[in-house]
Each structure stands twice: as C-alpha cells, then as structure tokens.
C-alpha cells in the first residue's frame, strides 16, 4: 500500500511533494502520541484499579464510564475548543478522553479475571494489605495489563489523528496532513498519509506491544507455544 501510494504520489502533478514536511509530521504525531499514551494510560490504570478495589466507586461511576466510552473521540473536540482553545492541551484532552474510559473499564475487567485463589494463597503466606497488592495482585494482573496497554495505544492513536484532523495546531501532525491533502484535491497524497498512519500503528504493535504481550503470556504459560 505504501509503495502504491508512493508511486501515485510521484505521478501526481499537483502541488510538489515535500518529504521533509511529511517527516516532520510523523515526528510531531509520534511525540504527541507518546505523551498522550503515557498520560492516558497512567490515568486509565489508576482508575481501573480504583474501580476494581472500591465496589462503591464502581457502582457509582462504572455506568458513567460505560456511557462515555461509547462517544467517538472526535466528539470531545468541540468541548476541547471551547474549554482550552485550539492548541496542544486540547489535542491531549481529546486523546485522554477518547481512551481513558474504555481502557480503565477493560483493565478493571482484566483485574477481575485474577483467580481468587491467588489472593487466598497470598494471605495464607502472610501477604497482607499493601504487600498483597504489590506481590500478588499486581503481578497477577500482568496479562490484563498487557492487553490494556495495547488497547490504550490504539485508542490514543485514533484520537490523536482525529484531533489533529480537526485542530490546526502548529507543528502539524499526520492528521493535519490528511486534511490539507483533501483541500489540495490530492488523492495520492491522502492515500500516502493514510498508509503512513497504518504503518505506524502496525510498527508500534509489532515492535512494542506484541512482544511484550507474548513475553508475559509465555511466562505465565498462557501462550500456545507447544
């Protein structure tokens, strides 16, 4: 797909193709992605842990989270513009809102799959209170954690591209490139940018989240590597 769009782009007679601008856009988006991922993942994991540990909190805000996570991330954009303006914090806001609710719910559900037997064994061996959390519940949640990280990445990435598409914030990221290609009536350029978005998503999954999940699953004996 990348090759195809590159050929198309080369054949395009429209506005001249400037690879440096594209490279800058990739860097910009990646940087925003890293920041957004770290912030929203941290928040999601803390919220997920809270929903899991305090049933009262879960009963109160659980349904709210469930409702809010059905919102597509770009639906947070109007609110972000009015609250924060069209700027970097607004993009971060959209990323966090677009991923946190869904990921915290999935992390909570992952924590719920921890066999209660581990807790009983931990208590029997003298792991109480914070020790139980640190030495039993957290390690036991690693498989749930790895899939939540993966999910968090894909939600943050989608939200980021949507936000960049809507906000005209300098430096411009890939989402903005897509928008400007549309204004230039340049289909090959649109295809190229889309292909880049897919490629970055696949690379992150293959180089980072896939191996992490595989390692954890192998360690836990969950992988089917017979």
């Amino acid at each position, binding site marked *: 797909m990348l090759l195809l769009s590159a050929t198309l782009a080369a054949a395009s007679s429209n506005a001249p193709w400037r690879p440096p601008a594209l490279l800058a856009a990739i860097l910009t988006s990646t940087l925003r992605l890293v920041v957004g991922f770290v912030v929203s993942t941290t928040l999601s994991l803390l919220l997920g842990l809270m929903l899991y540990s305090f049933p009262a909190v879960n009963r109160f805000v659980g349904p709210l989270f469930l409702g809010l996570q059905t919102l597509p991330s770009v639906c947070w954009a109007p609110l972000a513009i009015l609250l924060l303006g069209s700027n970097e914090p607004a993009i971060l806001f959209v990323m966090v809102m677009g991923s946190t609710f869904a990921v915290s719910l999935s992390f909570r559900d992952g924590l719920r799959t921890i066999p209660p*037997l581990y807790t009983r*064994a931990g208590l029997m061996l003298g792991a109480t209170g914070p020790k139980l959390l640190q030495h039993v519940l957290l390690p036991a949640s690693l498989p749930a954690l790895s899939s939540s990280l993966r999910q968090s990445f894909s939600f943050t990435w989608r939200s980021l591209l949507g936000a960049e598409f809507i906000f005209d914030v300098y430096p411009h990221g890939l989402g903005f490139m897509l928008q400007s290609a549309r204004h230039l009536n340049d289909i090959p350029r649109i295809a190229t940018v889309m292909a880049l978005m897919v490629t970055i998503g696949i690379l992150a999954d293959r180089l980072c989240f896939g191996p992490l999940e595989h390692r954890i699953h192998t360690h836990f004996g969950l992988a089917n590597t017979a």
Partner: protein
Amino acid sequence: MTLQDISLDCSPGEFVVLVGPSGCGKSTLLNIAAGMTTPDSGSVTLDDAPVMSPGPSRSMVFQDHALFPWLTAYQNIEFGLKMANLPKSEREGRTRAALAAVHLTHSADKLIHQLSGGMKQRVAIARALVLDPAVLLMDEPFAALDAQTRTLLHLQLQELWGNTRKTILFVTHSVGEAVRLADRIIVLHTHPGRIRKEIPVDLPHPRRLDSPDLNELARIVRKEIEDEVTHVNATQGLAAEDLWTPQTPDHHAPPLSDLGGGI
C-alpha cells in the same frame, strides 16, 4: 448451614483425615481452621490462641496448587519467607532445604507451567512447609493427579511427615488415601455436616497398600460413607424410581425362545 456442632481436637504431630461425600463441608471445615472463613458461631484455637485470619502458622495446600505463575518454583517457595522479611541468606538456606525435601532441587528455576501436575503439588507442599507451620492443612491436594503420581506423592508425604512430625489436617474423598495416611479418620455427615464417626488407625507407617488390615479398614470406612449417601438420598425425599442401589446382575435370563417372531 453447612456445618453444625463439630468439635475436633488434633494433638501435635497427628495426621487427621476428613472424609465424606461431596457437599458435607469438609473443605468448609478446613477453611475455618485456616481462618479463611469465619464461622457463624464457635471458635478455632491453636495452642490456646484464637485463630482470626489466615496466616503462616497454618499453611494450606490447595487442590489446584495455587502457585504463582509469574514466579519460578524456587521463588514460589521463598515467597512466604520474603513476606516475613527474613534476611536473604536465611531465606536461601530454608528454600534450598525445602526444595531438597520434596526432591525438586533440579527444577528450582523452572516456571510453574513447565512442571508436571505432581511436581506442582510438591512445590506447593514445600511452599507450605518452608514456613515451619504448626499445622499443615491439605485440601484434596492429590485429587487432580493420576493414580501413579498420587501413590508416589503418598509415599513422599509420609516421608516428610515422618521427618517433620507436623500436625496435618487432610481432606479427601478417597477412602484409599485416607486409610493409607491417617492416624485418625473422621467421617463427616451431610445436611448439616457433623462428625458421623471417628475411626482411629493404629497401623504402623509406612503402610503396605495390599495389607489385609488396610483393606478391612477401607471396607469399614467405605461402608460408613455408603450408608451416609443412602441416608442422604432417603432424607432428601427422592422419588422411588430415583433411588438406586447396586443390583447383582442376573446371569440366568431365559433364552430368547421367541426370537424371530415365529416366522
């Protein structure tokens, strides 16, 4: 209500086995002894001190081993010592000794899913014993194992018990297991769970599986449990056609004289 009016006293170093049909509260009784379940009334004391919560003085071996999959065999055994904040040198010595006691020194660094079912249970026993508990509680620890492995583990457990002289409270539904291991067998009653019969076993250890004494004892225990199951079926008001007792097969059925329908 699962259990009612149960009083059980184990003397130090005694091997007590609880047997009974499913649902009679064997495991509940064990959980109460461990402090995992709080009884509605009554109390548990260990050397005159009340038991309020689970803890290392009454370590438990679970049916599903309950080993931590993110740790190696060695780290699993070391876990309780680490929770007790013991210095590393002492932890290492005790963990190595426990591994040696269950003959698993060669598998110390294996992950749990790399061990066989029998090895997992041996690690679980080592993890419980390394804490030097006053009482060892075992909840059907060998139920999920194949017969050969189970026999081997019976021998190992008897060897361990002989060396350490721990008080063991052991739950099983296998009569063979009970007569092989116990100093005293307690047959439980269902609905509500009560002690139906206490059978002291005075045979010397280790016991031979094929000894007539053992078979006679197994017969007595089995009879108790069968009577109990029949009693439960009768009291649960089952319809007559649902009540089934073993029948002697009739090998003298009349010949099929009308075979062929007279053609």
